[in-house]
């Protein structure tokens, strides 16, 4: 069996790339997913979609994605529960607050509508938030959230309709490289010839790189997250704090979804959960959101952040193997970037260059120049 493009990974990134390839008329494409669609980080993520970033290029990529999320239902054909309820960024440190003010200036230049709110304005607008210790907050009303499973299924279904094949429960266990070029992949369902391979394997990106003999600078770290029992929908935005280390939103369905980062995590795949996480969250979140006290935690799980050295995705072509593409290392914000990334990678494959977004600053070359961390991450 032969395909022009073989995509490894059936998360939001792999399915988005397949969808945009199809839109550009390329349908000799197959997705290989070792478990089921959205079984990786995608199906475990918070579903937040934010444009308030600290670098220009990230703001642009995110704004491009938002354009797609807005018309997802009409264009892709699935209601993904997309809501532009905004993102409220809460800052608890002076230094960060000053950085936020600079960011907002830059974001406004890019055409993003962002407000700066004092603690008093926050408590006036959101009486259910306790603002003790808050220095300032920023709010962007066009940020939002969506249901990641539905988005993945949406892209996958649309891709199938365009003639793209999806192999679930099919693991890629080898990449055949001859004379510095990939000629096919070995899977649990047999060998497939191909012209191009896309590594969209999320937490397993490094292993997939190794299959082609390429060392990739990504590491996976567990991130835990839980949901509560549903309450009536009243909390339309995502509340997030980098200095406070948390994020929380209410799904349209009513449950609160929340999480934090954990500095003590060791690299590796770990699907278990710790109670320490629930305790730390409970302490912190009931202080800021006192209404949570009587709310119950319903289900707690974990997923992997595929981290790159500067907490920014790694996109583009391999500098070692010409027909090997990457869309990896999303460092905890791959869902929100998926449409723009899918479009860019598809353009790169079909036209040899991107048309709508510049992703050149996200290739592997950048690590040779030294690392500039994206700060706006949990």
């Amino acid at each position, binding site marked *: 069996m032969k395909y022009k493009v073989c995509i490894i990974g059936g998360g939001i990134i792999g399915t988005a790339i397949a969808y945009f390839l199809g839109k550009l008329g390329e349908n000799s494409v197959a997705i290989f997913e070792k*478990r*089921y*669609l*959205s*079984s990786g980080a995608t*199906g475990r993520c918070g579903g937040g979609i934010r444009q308030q970033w600290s670098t220009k290029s990230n703001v642009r990529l995110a704004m491009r994605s938002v354009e797609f999320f807005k018309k997802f239902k009409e264009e892709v054909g699935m209601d993904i529960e997309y809501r532009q309820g905004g993102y409220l960024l809460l800052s608890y440190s002076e230094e960060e607050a000053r950085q936020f003010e600079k960011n907002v200036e830059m974001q406004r230049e890019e055409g993003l509508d962002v407000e700066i709110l004092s603690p008093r304005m926050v408590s006036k607008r959101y009486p259910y938030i306790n603002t003790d210790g808050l220095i300032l907050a920023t709010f962007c009303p066009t940020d939002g959230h969506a249901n990641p*499973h*539905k988005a993945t*299924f949406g892209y996958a*279904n649309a891709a199938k309709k365009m003639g793209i094949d999806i192999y*679930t429960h099919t693991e890629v266990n080898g990449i055949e490289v001859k004379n510095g070029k990939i000629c096919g992949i070995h899977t649990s369902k047999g060998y497939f010839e191909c012209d191009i391979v896309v590594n969209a394997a999320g937490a397993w990106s490094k292993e997939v790189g190794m299959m082609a003999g390429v060392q990739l600078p990504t590491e996976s770290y567990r991130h835990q997250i839980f949901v*509560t*029992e*549903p309450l009536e929908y009243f909390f339309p935005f995502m509340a997030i704090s980098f200095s406070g280390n948390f994020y929380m939103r209410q799904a349209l*369905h009513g449950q609160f979804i929340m999480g934090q980062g954990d500095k003590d995590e060791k690299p590796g795949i*770990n*699907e*278990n*959960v*710790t*109670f*320490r996480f*629930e*305790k730390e969250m*409970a*302490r912190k*979140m*009931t202080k800021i959101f006192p209404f*949570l*006290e*009587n*709310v*119950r*935690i*319903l*289900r*707690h*799980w974990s997923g992997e952040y595929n981290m790159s050295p500067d907490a920014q995705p790694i996109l583009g072509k391999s500098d070692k193997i010409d027909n090997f593409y990457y869309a990896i290392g999303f460092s905890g914000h791959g869902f929100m970037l998926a449409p723009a990334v899918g479009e860019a990678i598809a353009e790169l494959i079909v036209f040899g260059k991107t048309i709508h977004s510049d992703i050149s600053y996200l290739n592997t070359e950048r690590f040779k120049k030294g690392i500039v961390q994206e700060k706006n991450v949990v």
Partner: protein
Amino acid sequence: MVKKVQALVIGAGPAGLCGSIAIAENGVEVLVVDEGLVPGGQLPKQTHKFFGHEGFFASVRGFEIGEKLYNDAVNLGVKFLMKTTVSGIYEDVIVLYDRENERIYEINADYVLIATGASERFISFKKNYLPGVYGAGAVQTLMNQYRVLPGNDFLIVGAGNIGLIVAYQLLQAGANVKAIVEASNKVGGYLVHANKVKRMGVPILLRHTIVEAIGEERVRGAVISEVDDSFNPIKGTEKELAVDTICLAVGLQPSIELAAQAGAEIKYIPELGGYVPIRDENMKTTVDNVYIAGDLASIEEASTAMIEGYIAGYNIAQKITGLDLSENISKMKKELEEFRRGPFSGKVRKGLKKFGVEFPEGGFRTEPQKDEGPAGKLRVKIECPQNIPCNPCETSCPTGAIDVGGNINGLPYVDYDKCIGCGVCVMKCPGLAIFLVQELSDYSIVGIPYEFELPEKGEKVLLLDRNGEIVGEGEIEKIVRNSKGKTHIVYLKVPKGLEDNVRHFVRHEEKEEEIVCRCEEITRSEIEKAIEEGYTDFEELRRYLRISMGPCGGRVCRLQTLSIISLKTGIPISELESGRFRPPSIPIPFKAILKGDEKDEI
């Protein structure tokens, strides 16, 4: 602060109680945690006498067994935390949620015995969401623990032991049971249990199922219909029954969540009740310090649950203390072997074989006794035709007139020369399957085991046969009260020739949508449609439809969904991915976690 214990037992049912006793007997500190109101698991809800042998409380009523085991454990120094749910076995700690004080505790244990028993399975039918459709366990809890009846006229779905017992208990609590419907072509439970309700006039309709609940705000009736060989309702055979409560007793599934969270490997073995943890003959799971016992290991009986509890407990004690307890362990293994030889253990034997744990079968008497004894003598008639693991008839008879032929599964025989008609066995038999008869010149005497409000001596009554049909009129000749055991004997004067028919009596004055996931209101047809759209994995459906994402955590709908997937895709459930079992196992309020932070002692 995290508290450390040597041995933690989760579940205070017969398995957990016996496990804790075995551990504590050897001087090890044990903590038992149970979410129930009182210790005993299923036992406190059971007002009937249990089968088995006297070593394991045969002929004792369930709730009394529970009390007895609990007292034994307390006397050995076992600590209990009731109304407390083990809400999760996390990577770092085990978390207990104390409902009453709304707080959590954190525990670390060297060894864990998980004996969480089983939860009820459910089926879907039209308008099954209406109040008035209840699980059998729920009805038992309300009726026998809280002493309230959730209705007056009941339809019971399922003629396994649970359905049969619940029917009998409902009759005892003063409710009417209009019918028991059973989709297969035979009664799944013990015939002695079936006979108890049949002779009281409760029809057991085989090859029948429920298709719809009737009512707007609550159940006002039920539509039942016949089913074909593949259990599908046959059009045109529908009948309406006027009932106000529909009680579902369609089977149990092991409560494996915690075992799965502990990392034990899980396998789908339908013979054992569904998904079960893999374990060895010592009840050890694939995780070295995690043991299991009871219904969690295989849906069976209290007697086997107790023995498994002992086996697991002695093994844990042996590991902790370094003592050699092999003698205790092999004694219990022998007991288990004896119990599991019979035909009702066939499924369990077959299922356990899949783990490489083998049990022998047979070696007991299967031929019923032909001799009916000398007419005219007051003597027993035993109507116990199946090989069930039970022998109180043998062990209770003061003259040694009854024997079951060695193995406990054997059929009882009476030595009529020895039987003096004293009636002790009639009061003891948990199946209420022993009667007394005597043919006299003008009439006959039939002695009946009786567990209802007693009639008056000399009272005229209507005589019922084995199917509850009225066959004539008789009179109460004599009553022998049994104030301790509560199974009394009522001697009836019956017309000659009816002594072989009369087995009960009545006193004269007496006489739309199918929802699979209840939390999210997801219907069967929505699931079927999604499967047709290509979402054929449980996890995919879960994410797509939100099935089993609601507050129940998938307890009600997981297996139902898997069976719908299996039906639609033709893939057997054993080959489907069961999906993850995520903590917490009961939603915990933030408040409780905060409170757990403040105080540490248990």
